[in-house]
């Protein structure tokens, strides 16, 4: 075999080198029709994993006790199989051409001058691209950035900066260079790297970012009674919408036309199911009333400043821009097959449903006719940064310029820094008022301004999440919180673990430590006096769900030797290590899991021989979610699936629609507020797993129990069960099968056969929805009767022994879609009170600070977490350890300049950007503990996102303990500390 261009002999591994692609069993799944274009989706990884799963040793991944021996996807990952989208080339994908094109961007490194043109003379004659794509080409071909699916400006306005315009942000692509072979592509890319003369600039215009993205305000006026109805709150009265005068917020009544935030489907945590049914005048009166309460709070703060009994602490903080640094850089591969009018996409994304919708909008009216989109996704990792990223859409854009070949875009690390999504930087101003005698917090007033860079993306949602997390773990009778999302010429910021709450909570936790010192109260004791508890109202007015466990956690932290003995340890350490200063700090937060509007869907069915098949919307992003979902199945019915497919985005058994409103939902059993989730917000284990657990419970109650009862009743006189009294409540899942009440354990396979023989339900598909409250519906289910369950859609299959009449009902994707007879959705506006599900997480950090240099070494680390009832404890601890490392990176070393010398200049890489290594995270010394569940029915909670937050402030508080100096500007670098040390 030879390369068709270079005539070089090519060694193909198919003949003599071990590798596997595992795509032979790949199957396409119809995703839906968007903009009139049929979209199908397939997951390369699950198909491959199924193949791996069918061989030893992968088939032994779960033990007989339902505990995983290792991750379900462990074998393929540890042996170098193709699992990430980045691993695949066109030749690996069934039906794609064997050769492919490669492309890279020319990007602007200035955002203050007009883009005029590009100059590729440095490439010489040999390395000129086979195709150059400029904005003008896209305009001619009507390929535009989608403006509808996620709202105007969400993905920006231009893929490539038009000639004559100033790039909206640093690092913005201005041209795409396409090569039909890899060797010239890579040589050209290397030639142009770091050159500053490839892009020609014209007139100096100054920065031209988009308009600012959003400004909103939540005011709550309650009382010392956290259960009392407040005078004003977000939940009751809604947020106050602001506008801008420059970058300065403007509010009613001065502002008469508030800024409407862009539509942010799925992830705009501020938009409830429907806005409260108020007229514009009513809404304005509410907002003006809210501004009146805000003025009252401001006056109360002023009064407190001169009151001897009050502490007023005002601090300004800064949380820096960081790069998510997912080890897999952004990448994608796409092929436009003009012959079949099909667009094939391979994407690395956390939100395939969003990619499909956006791609369909992109190509709907473009010059290249597209009837079908086939979307493939690989396993990926992004910590949020591959959630609604524009990168997959760039891949779609490039597909049309490969001259018939697939086009691959794959960032190197410089490019990833230059255009990859960032964590927002925040400027934060907080005023904390406390009563000196009681130590009780009385007022929290804050402004939380994030810098979203040059594309809106999820900046508004991130700013909202900042104020929703701002209270950390405390109850505040009164609060006035402003969320600001600013535009700038910085590289785009978007979804990233922490999502605004990290920044807001960090600054408050630093302040609480300082307040404790000012009040002369132990910092943990001060937290105890102000801790949120079950049912308390948050700063938006929403109730806190479940036992908060804050005080439990504080008690454990206070008893830990790092805290209890900190004074003695400090003295001993500093005596033994001259020139070093020792300190211990603590912080604790409540971090939301879920996003409001959380959905899940799955289908689980079994054959008479017991073969169990699972299809689930959950997809793998590294956390082990696909492992945990299968463990939940075992815990519910005593067997793990034999065949699984994850990342499913279409369930024919659940033909639901989101067209319409909640009112339609009562009448239309096919309506749901939201169909499928993205993978974000620490939602998988509780919210996606909720549907898994409900399906398992349904089968347990309505299939396994009657099947077991039938088996136990065999024989004369009612069988072995007859002399006893055995109920559903007696049943347990054991290693040997379903048992309980003194009866013989029955293996799942035997129950499956009996269920089929009896014609019981042998398959369940379910859709669940929560807006901080689960939707419930009543279904009249044949063989069961009427049931009310926390799901808004249900389909079932009947066993082989079912009557012909029942089988005739199985017409919806092979299932009987049970039209709900009634449904209750969460009330409108409940989203204004979010978040309502939180996990408590605390962290003790011990540091040693070197005098003179200010260098910080973490010498002790103890993490506390309320994970609820963990599904796979090993996965929880792995997430916890990873969260700690990421938090330490944010606290001590990771930082990106926003503008000059920032990542937009294309020169950043891991040589300049310091990531935590093992030596930085006390890898051998760190410890952790989990609050034991209060009962065996406690659900699991979100994990890593909660863990990575308190370690940041705890590190700052430890530095304060060590040095006597307080720092509110992150990261806490050695140079800042050295300057502050006397």
């Amino acid at each position: 075999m030879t390369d068709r261009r270079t005539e070089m002999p090519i060694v193909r591994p198919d003949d003599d080198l071990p590798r596997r692609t595992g795509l032979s069993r790949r199957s396409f799944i119809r995703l839906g029709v968007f903009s009139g274009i049929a979209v199908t989706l397939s997951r390369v990884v699950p198909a491959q994993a199924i193949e791996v799963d069918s061989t030893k040793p992968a088939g032994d991944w779960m033990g007989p006790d339902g505990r995983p021996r290792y991750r379900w996807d462990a074998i393929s990952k540890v042996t170098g199989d193709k699992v990430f989208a980045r691993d695949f080339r066109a030749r690996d994908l069934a039906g794609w051409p064997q050769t492919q094109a490669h492309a890279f961007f020319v990007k602007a490194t200035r955002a203050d001058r007009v883009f005029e043109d590009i100059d590729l003379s440095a490439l010489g004659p040999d390395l000129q691209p086979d195709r150059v794509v400029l904005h003008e080409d896209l305009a001619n071909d009507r390929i535009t950035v989608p403006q509808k699916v996620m709202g105007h400006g969400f993905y920006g306005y231009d893929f490539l900066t038009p000639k004559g315009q100033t790039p909206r942000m640093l690092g913005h692509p201005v041209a795409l260079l396409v090569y039909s072979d890899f060797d010239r592509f890579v040589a050209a890319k290397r030639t142009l790297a770091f050159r500053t003369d490839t892009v020609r600039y014209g007139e100096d215009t100054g920065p031209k970012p988009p308009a600012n993205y959003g400004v909103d305000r939540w005011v709550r006026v309650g009382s010392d009674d956290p259960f009392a109805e407040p005078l004003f709150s977000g939940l009751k009265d809604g947020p106050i919408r602001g506008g801008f005068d420059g970058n300065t917020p403007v509010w009613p009544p001065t502002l008469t036309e508030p800024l409407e935030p862009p539509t942010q489907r799925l992830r705009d945590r501020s938009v409830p199911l429907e806005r409260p049914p108020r007229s514009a005048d009513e809404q304005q009166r509410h907002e003006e009333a809210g501004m009146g309460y805000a003025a009252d709070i401001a006056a109360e703060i002023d009064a407190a400043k001169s009151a001897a009994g009050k502490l007023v602490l005002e601090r300004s903080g800064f949380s820096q821009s960081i790069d998510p640094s997912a080890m897999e850089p952004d990448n994608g591969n796409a092929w436009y097959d003009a012959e079949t009018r099909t667009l094939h996409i391979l994407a690395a994304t956390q939100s395939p449903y969003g990619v499909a919708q956006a791609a369909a909008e992109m190509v709907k009216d473009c010059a290249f006719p597209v009837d079908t989109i086939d979307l493939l996704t690989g396993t990926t990792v992004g910590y949020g940064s591959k959630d609604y990223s524009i990168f997959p859409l760039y891949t779609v854009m490039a597909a049309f310029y490969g001259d018939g070949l697939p086009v691959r875009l794959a960032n190197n690390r410089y490019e990833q820094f230059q255009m990859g999504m960032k964590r927002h930087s925040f400027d934060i101003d907080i005023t904390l008022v406390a009563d000196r005698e009681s130590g009780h917090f009385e007022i929290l007033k804050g402004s939380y301004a994030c810098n979203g860079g040059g594309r809106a993306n999820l900046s508004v949602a991130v700013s909202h999440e900042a104020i929703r997390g701002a209270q950390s773990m405390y109850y505040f009778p009164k609060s006035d919180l402003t969320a600001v999302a600013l535009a700038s010429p910085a590289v785009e910021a978007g979804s990233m673990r922490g999502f605004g709450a990290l920044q807001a909570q960090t600054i408050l936790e630093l302040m609480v430590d300082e307040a404790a010192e000012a009040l002369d109260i132990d910092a943990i004791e001060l937290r105890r006096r102000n801790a949120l508890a079950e049912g308390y109202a948050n700063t938006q007015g929403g109730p806190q769900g479940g036992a908060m466990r804050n005080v439990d956690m504080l008690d454990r932290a206070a008893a830990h030797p790092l805290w209890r003995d900190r004074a003695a340890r400090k003295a001993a350490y500093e005596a033994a290590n001259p020139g070093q200063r020792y300190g211990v700090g603590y912080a604790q937060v409540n971090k939301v899991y879920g996003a409001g509007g959380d959905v899940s869907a799955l289908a689980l069915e079994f054959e008479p021989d017991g073969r169990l098949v699972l299809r689930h919307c959950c997809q793998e992003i590294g956390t082990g979610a696909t492992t945990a979902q299968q463990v939940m199945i075992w815990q519910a019915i005593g067997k793990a699936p034999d065949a699984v497919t994850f990342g499913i985005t279409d369930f024919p058994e659940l033909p639901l629609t989101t067209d319409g409103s909640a009112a339609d939902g009562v009448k239309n059993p096919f309506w749901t507020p939201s169909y499928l989730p993205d993978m974000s917000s620490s939602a998988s284990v509780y919210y996606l797993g909720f549907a898994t657990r409900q399906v398992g419970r349904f089968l347990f109650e309505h299939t396994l129990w009657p099947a077991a009862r039938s088996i136990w009743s065999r024989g004369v006189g009612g069988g072995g069960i007859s002399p006893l009294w055995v109920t559903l409540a007696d049943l347990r899942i054991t290693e040997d099968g379903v048992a309980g009440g003194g009866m013989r354990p029955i293996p799942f396979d035997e129950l499956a056969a009996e269920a089929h023989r009896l014609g019981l339900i042998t398959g369940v598909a379910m859709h669940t929805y929560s807006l901080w409250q689960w939707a419930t519906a009543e279904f009249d289910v044949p063989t069961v009767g009427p049931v009310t369950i926390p799901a808004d859609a249900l389909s079932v299959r009947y066993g082989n022994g079912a009557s012909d009449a029942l089988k005739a009902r199985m017409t919806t994707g092979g299932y009987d879609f049970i039209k709900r007879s009634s449904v209750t959705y969460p009330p409108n506006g409940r989203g204004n009170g979010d978040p309502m599900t939180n996990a408590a997480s605390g962290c003790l950090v011990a540091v040693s600070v070197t005098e003179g240099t200010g260098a910080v070494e973490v010498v002790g680390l103890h993490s506390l977490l309320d994970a609820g009832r963990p599904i796979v404890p090993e996965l929880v601890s792995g997430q916890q350890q990873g969260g700690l490392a990421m938090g330490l990176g944010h606290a001590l070393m990771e930082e990106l300049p926003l503008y000059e010398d920032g990542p937009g200049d294309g020169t950043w890489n891991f040589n300049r950007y310091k990531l935590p290594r093992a030596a930085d995270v006390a890898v051998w010394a760190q410890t952790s503990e989990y609050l034991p569940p209060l009962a065996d029915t406690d659900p699991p909670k979100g994990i890593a996102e909660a863990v990575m937050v308190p370690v940041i402030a705890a590190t700052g508080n430890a530095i304060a303990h060590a040095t006597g100096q307080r720092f509110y500007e992150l990261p806490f670098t050695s140079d800042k500390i050295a300057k502050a040390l006397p």
Partner: protein
Amino acid sequence: MSESLPLSLTINGRAVGPVDVPLGMPMIDFLHEHLNLTGTRFGCGQGICHACTVVIEAADGTTSESRTCIFDAHYFNGKSIVTIEGQAPRDADGNVIELTPVQKAFIDNFAFQCGYCTPGFVTGATVFMDSLKRKPVRRADLEQAIEDALNVHLCRCTGYVRYYEAIRDLALATPGYVID
């Protein structure tokens, strides 16, 4: 275009080449694009993160770890290397027959999450274990020896703890690798 020269080497026990490869092409690109061996992962292109490492087998049976993102493919001319695809023995169809001790230790300890950096950690830990075979480490020095050997490997998901614990436990469980 730069000049191309013939390259011959041994990869995963099989002879490859001679094949013309452009001068200046990093080894990782040769593995990915010419051989379709994509398990060796690109992380930084600077030799900083060590996601891209492979084992070099010397003639005397010793092993070392080498980055492939910063070394020209021709640097490996005449050498014998093992990529992640060649660590575990496989049958004729490419199916894994048995994991290596390092691979097994990692999966048993739930060491990785996304797994992008895992091939580099397998490579680094394998070379480290091989070094212990030739030169055992004192028990008191084991943790530091692991850190010295593996600290160059970046991981963004795990916080390193489970990787390091897996290597420590494997070293302790392997007779002769750790001495009092």
